[in-house]
């Protein structure tokens, strides 16, 4: 048997080169795979925590109500004549604050800090009265469903600002109530 391999020296050398390459790869592989890879599935488990660790922009309604409870209830429901059914009587009562006011997490966080006496910039809630905002939901366009109150610009309310007749938090006007 020895004779068969007497002239195989070069084959052994090339095999050694390949073997060294494979071993080097396996060692490098061990070093390069992140420690938390594969602990939950075929991915780096830390990526889940990274997906969680982002700042939020929208605070969520609960945090608005947390501070603005009085304002919130007074505006949406007239204390003198509370709506029998808030949804049908005042559809804006189901809107979340940030639907119109925009992202307010920064405002909420800074304000909480200021309340606690910490140093934080004043970030007031911007006043939004632009007609564009109203028309975003109430302009009459193709495909907007029939249940949604819609206006044609020019046909409705002349050139007045929306807010000159409709209070944003309780948009039904006296005329609406009568009609």
């Amino acid at each position, binding site marked *: 048997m020895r004779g068969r391999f007497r002239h195989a020296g070069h084959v052994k050398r090339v095999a050694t080169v390949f073997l060294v390459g494979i071993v080097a790869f396996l060692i490098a592989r061990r070093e390069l795979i992140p420690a938390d*890879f594969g602990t*939950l*599935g*075929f*991915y*780096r488990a830390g*990526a*889940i*925590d*990274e*997906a*969680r*660790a*982002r*700042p*939020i*922009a*929208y605070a*969520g*309604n*609960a*945090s608005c*109500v*947390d*501070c603005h*409870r009085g304002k*919130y*209830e007074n505006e949406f429901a007239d204390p003198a004549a509370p709506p029998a059914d808030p949804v049908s009587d005042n559809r804006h009562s*189901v*809107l*979340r604050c*940030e*639907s119109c006011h*925009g*992202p307010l*997490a920064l405002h909420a*966080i800074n304000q*909480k*800090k200021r309340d606690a006496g910490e140093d934080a910039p004043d970030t007031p809630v911007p006043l939004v009265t632009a007609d564009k905002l109203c*028309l*975003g*939901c109430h*302009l*009459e*366009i*193709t*495909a*907007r*469903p029939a249940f*949604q109150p819609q206006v044609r610009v020019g046909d409705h309310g002349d050139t007045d600002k929306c807010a000159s007749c409709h209070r944003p938090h309780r948009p039904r006007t006296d005329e609406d109530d009568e009609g």
Partner: protein
Amino acid sequence: MDQNRRAFLKQSTRYVLLTGAATVAWEYIVAGAPEQAPNYRIADHWWGMTIDVDACIGSGNCVRACKEENNVPLEDGYFRTWVERYRVDPADPEHPLVDSPNGGYDGFPQIDNPGGRFKTFFVPKMCNHCADSPCTQVCPVGATFDSPDGVVLVDKERCVGCRYCVQACPYGCRFIDPRTHTADKCTLCYHRITQGLTTACAEVCPTGARKLVDFKDPKDPVHEFLRTHRIHVLKPELATGAKVYYNGLDGAVR
């Protein structure tokens, strides 16, 4: 947070949309370390979404809020969620006319509906967080994955930017972020939902057309919703296990 406010949050049923868990998480958000909020158990959740097509008024609120919340590039061509407008000729339902200018970010312009004969409606689109997602299947390096709570996420530290996942998504929900050169997509606002908040798109939707749902929560109204409505997913023939359930979805929607 003082005791009165906390008591109010717990008692209130009409205005407060969040659970007690979110109140705890809020303290961590204020402290600037939201990921350390301790009360999220990943095995207890299985996230998805329901979209009520009939309720969508095409305001584009969701598209704008999503870009704001998730720092999505503002240019056209990069959307984690968008809204499509359909005009379907009842005589030719296989060739609907669809438009989605800038994904609906700027709202929708008035458009022709000759004689009012077309059936028209809006359809919000987003990642379906498929249970058998084609995009995670094809990722060569495990940079995109289904999290144990059913959300398809991207690991931006490992994504090589080969774009195979973009090709594999049948819904066109993925894009390459031009700033990081890595794949990007809807995370179902993972940073929010794991702290008891809802997604940004659901938060700002004026009609509540979008609802975040947790299938593992027995008290989630989704179970009743799915039982009492005719629901549909997009492209069911591709068997992706899509978890965005549409109510009132028209057959013409692609």
